[in-house]
């Protein structure tokens, strides 16, 4: 008769001491129970809908009970869907129950704390650009969409209306060819060659001046970015080329009419290379320490970039800091790299990063790397540079934060010499 088994009503009646219930009453009650349950579920569905969910949860049910002025059921709160176990109490009579895990109290107390769930966060991406959905990893692929009804079909479908949607077969937008005018191409070639004109200071200055001020360069920006990336990767031993490349980037950054934010992710690797590079320039030609000047310049560039664009990309600063830290902590890297890493960390995030990232590792670094290097005649000069860089960072801190324990002997000595403590 009813879905709800009348036997249950008898069971409940017996449990509260009513031994015999007339059959009529039992069936009546069973039907009533069914109706009430439907009522509760109906109310619960409202809560589900307003929570913008498509699965009903136990919270919805307890909210519904509260709305119907019934005491909610306690102990069933769950953010996950409940798992149901099944037991058989006879042929064809499955019994369902909520699986309750047995927890050993002792174990629970001694167990390490569970991992903190990951922070709620958001990311942004283009779902559509001028009516066309870009094929990026954040958007579903064509295969994912197959079972969704996305466009109108059938006799009434108006294909012209949907023509812009990109999901139709009416017209495929051709790949846009980036057309550069002759003049711009010429300008690009001339500027690039002028910048690397080693013997003509005047040429170089003119090229940079033009890059810093010319308002019409926007179309060339991707080409310049690509150009710099090429030059940097292929000329790691030519200090001059690297320096000029960095100056090119700096000029672009200074140009007030260029909007560089979209190109920052592709610019940063080149700059980082000049900060952290293992071997920049060739010691035989340029001397052992000239590359420090390049690292200085590049790291100031890096600071400039993060200051300007840190707010447009929430991951920019952490990414730079992470790669700097990685190089700093790698004791197999040459001192030059360490120098760049310390400089990068200091300039990108200031006192904060010195305090959080450099200080805790300083002692180990000083004992593991610096002390040996200073004793070694061949490396002393470089090591001094590194110590200078560290000092630069340490100066940002309060004197209260400084102590010999954390700084390590070498730096502590310097700190004392400088009279900071």
């Amino acid at each position: 008769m009813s879905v709800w088994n009348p036997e249950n009503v008898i069971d409940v009646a017996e449990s509260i001491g009513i031994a015999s219930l007339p059959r009529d009453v039992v069936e009546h009650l069973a039907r009533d129970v069914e109706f009430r349950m439907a009522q509760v579920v109906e109310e619960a569905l409202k809560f589900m809908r307003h929570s913008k969910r498509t699965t009903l949860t136990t919270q919805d049910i307890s909210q519904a009970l509260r709305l119907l002025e019934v005491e909610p059921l306690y102990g069933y709160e769950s953010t996950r869907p409940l798992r149901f176990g099944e037991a058989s109490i006879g042929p064809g009579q499955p019994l369902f129950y909520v699986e309750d895990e047995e927890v050993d109290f002792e174990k629970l107390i001694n167990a390490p704390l569970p991992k903190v769930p990951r922070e709620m966060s958001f990311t942004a991406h283009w779902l559509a650009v001028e009516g066309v959905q870009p094929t990026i990893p954040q958007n579903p692929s064509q295969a994912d969409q197959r079972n969704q009804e996305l466009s109108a079909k059938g006799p009434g479908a108006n294909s012209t209306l949907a023509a812009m949607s990109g999901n139709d077969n009416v017209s495929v937008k051709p790949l846009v060819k980036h057309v550069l005018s002759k003049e711009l191409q010429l300008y690009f070639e001339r500027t690039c060659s002028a910048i690397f004109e080693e013997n003509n200071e005047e040429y170089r200055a003119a090229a940079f001046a033009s890059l810093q001020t010319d308002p019409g360069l926007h179309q060339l920006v991707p080409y310049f970015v690509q150009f710099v990336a090429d030059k940097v990767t292929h000329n790691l031993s030519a200090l001059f080329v690297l320096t000029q490349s960095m100056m090119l980037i700096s000029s672009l950054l200074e140009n007030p009419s260029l909007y560089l934010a979209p190109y920052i992710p592709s610019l940063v690797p080149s700059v980082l290379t000049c900060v952290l590079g293992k071997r920049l320039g060739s010691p035989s030609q340029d001397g052992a320490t000239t590359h420090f000047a390049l690292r200085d310049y590049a790291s100031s560039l890096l600071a400039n970039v993060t200051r300007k664009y840190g707010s447009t990309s929430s991951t920019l600063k952490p990414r730079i800091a992470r790669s700097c830290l990685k190089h700093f902590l790698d004791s197999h890297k040459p001192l030059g790299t360490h120098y760049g890493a310390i400089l990068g960390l200091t300039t990108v995030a200031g006192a904060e990063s010195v305090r959080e990232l450099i200080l805790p590792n300083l002692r180990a670094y000083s004992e593991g790397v610096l002390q040996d290097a200073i004793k070694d005649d061949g490396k002393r000069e470089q090591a001094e540079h590194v110590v200078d860089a560290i000092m630069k960072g340490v100066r940002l801190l309060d004197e209260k934060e400084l102590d010999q324990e954390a700084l390590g002997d070498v730096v502590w000595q310097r700190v004392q010499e400088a009279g900071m403590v």
Partner: protein
Amino acid sequence: MAHQPPPARTASAGPPSAGGMQTPATTPGPGQGGGSNQNLNQIVLEYLAKKGYSRTEAMLRKESAHTDPNGQLITSRVEETGGKMYRTSFALLHNWIENSLDIYKPELKRILWPVFVHAFLNLVGDFYPRESKDFFEAFQELFASEHEDDLRVLGPITEPEHLQQNELAQLFRTNKYRLTISRLAFTNLIMFLEDHEKEGGTVIVNLIQNFLDVRTPDRQAAGGQRGLQRLLAERNGERDYPAEDEGIPGHNPGSANVSQSAPSVLSKLALGPMPMEPDMMEDVKAELQEQDGVHPPAAGQNSLVDEFEQRIKNEPMDDVPSREALPFPPSTARDVAMEVQKVKENRDRFRVEGRTGGVGPGLSVTMFTFHNTFDSINCIEFSGDNTLVAAGTAESYIRVWSLDNRALTSPSDPPTFQPSSSRRLVGHSGPVYCLSFSPSVALPQAQTNGHTSLDNSLDSQPRFLLSASADATIRLWSLDTWTNLVVYRGHQSPVWDVRFCPHGHYFVSCSADRSARLWSTPQIAPLRLMVGHDSDVESVAWHPNGAYVFTGSGGSDRTVRMWDITRGSAVRLFTGHVGNVTALACAPNGHVVASADDRGEIILWSLATGRLTKRMRGHGRGGIWSLDWSVESSVLVSGGADGTVRVWDVQPNKESNGKVVGEGGAGTKIDGATNGVGTGAVTKTGTGKAKKDVVVSPDQISAFPTKKSPVYNVRFTQMNLVMAGGAYLP
């Protein structure tokens, strides 16, 4: 008395000896004694004849004529079969309608649903539990597609007392279901029912008389709406929709007056934008002039002053709401700056001009996907200046993030506090269902070459945030100090939706207690109560001029109503949804309102005439959570549980036979050839295949699927960029 269950009728449990309407078939007695009974009659008759008691004999013959040879009663009227009569009668009606002429069929089919409901309710009310269940199961398939939700509510009703406690049953029993059938069709129906009086006709006629309010206009008089051609066109379209005036709050289309004798004249609406204060207008003009001086307009661009004056010139003078009726606090410098920026953004916006030459405009959509939410986010809201996003969670707190990764600080922060780009607002004691930022516009800042300067003028931030929760309260939060300022109590049940007035100061909320309320931020008691919905009020929206609000209801009501907030009375009523209304949005031009339901349908309503403009389908099941209009009111965008953002063409379909939009080599293209209000193009897949659940109507311009992320909010910025927010649910 009628609800006293006579135990004799509990067919399943009643003792075999029960009398009354119990048919003898279930009693074991007559079955075996049938033969002897017959013989006995024969013997008595013979005896009477022999004795010459002719009159007694005649009487016996006459009286035994109603029983068949087995001694069972021969029923001549279907009413005598008790609980089975409704089933027989309904089957009769259904068969006849199925076989009726095609021109009447779509209209007549509409009568099946109310008759079905009332037959079922009567069965339950008369206490035929088994018969009512049989009846329900036999015919529920017919309505499964259109009335799925109602069937789910009706199904478990088995006892007469449930009728009192079920909202839907009460609605049906205490109201008359209004239905319009053209006169000829209705006459035919009544003639048929009278002809088949004994097979169930009377039962149906009684139901129609008692519970239905049938309007019978002449087909000719009704014109295009019910014209023959229209009906024939709809045959392919499989009309599954209730007519606009059909249903329980059956009304004269558009009118909020539901009485049967309501005048057909609609109350006049003031749909124009709210006029600006004269002082403020001067200030804005002066400010714009200054701006023009500093940044002269580019070639081909209007100056800001021109733009502003054009806008004022285009505003109608007659149908604007009066400022006196709706007092606002005096405007501040911030208001002037916001107004200036609005004019500026309006000039510089990306224009979405509707379809040009039949091609829909291409929109850009930025999607903000929330991760690690575990489905606990209930709502997402963006601020008007696009700097903040807020999410209300099932865990009763609200979290606000800065979109540009700026630290959110408060003057009351302790010095050791490390500000981050997100803040938690804790205060509610139940899931937060809706948020609304006070109006704000991104104020200008030294913006050269796209490098945002660091000292962002804090002024552009909205000052307040409203939240509505299941704890029946609404809270006002300050976004300067990040604290709770006011708790508005008044609603009796969970508050489903809350919206700030487009000009700030006022806000409107709606709740499961079936009321919508108007509040002003400085007062803790509601200013107006808007009561009239028969079920939960599920969503609200403001008219852009701030003089009207719209409410949408779910449950058994499913209407959209428009209220005049100065008088607190309903001025329009729109029926036609088959699902719960989940989102509402009024066009910025103030003439059209769009409403969406959880069956994936969007309906556009014209406010002045109070009529349905068109239906648009395409979203999957599970609810359309958000709607918004482009600045020009030319395009509607929607986002929903099916994880898509869809763009819709809002131009009304024409009743005419379509026009030629272009001739190509392949042939002539006809635009809008199958234009009927509300007929989606049905994908006719092969006969073997099941009919597809989702039908995309031709008004859809584009659809953008997300990666497993239901879209909770879509919003057009002042510059016509679409922002969408959703939670990634792997």
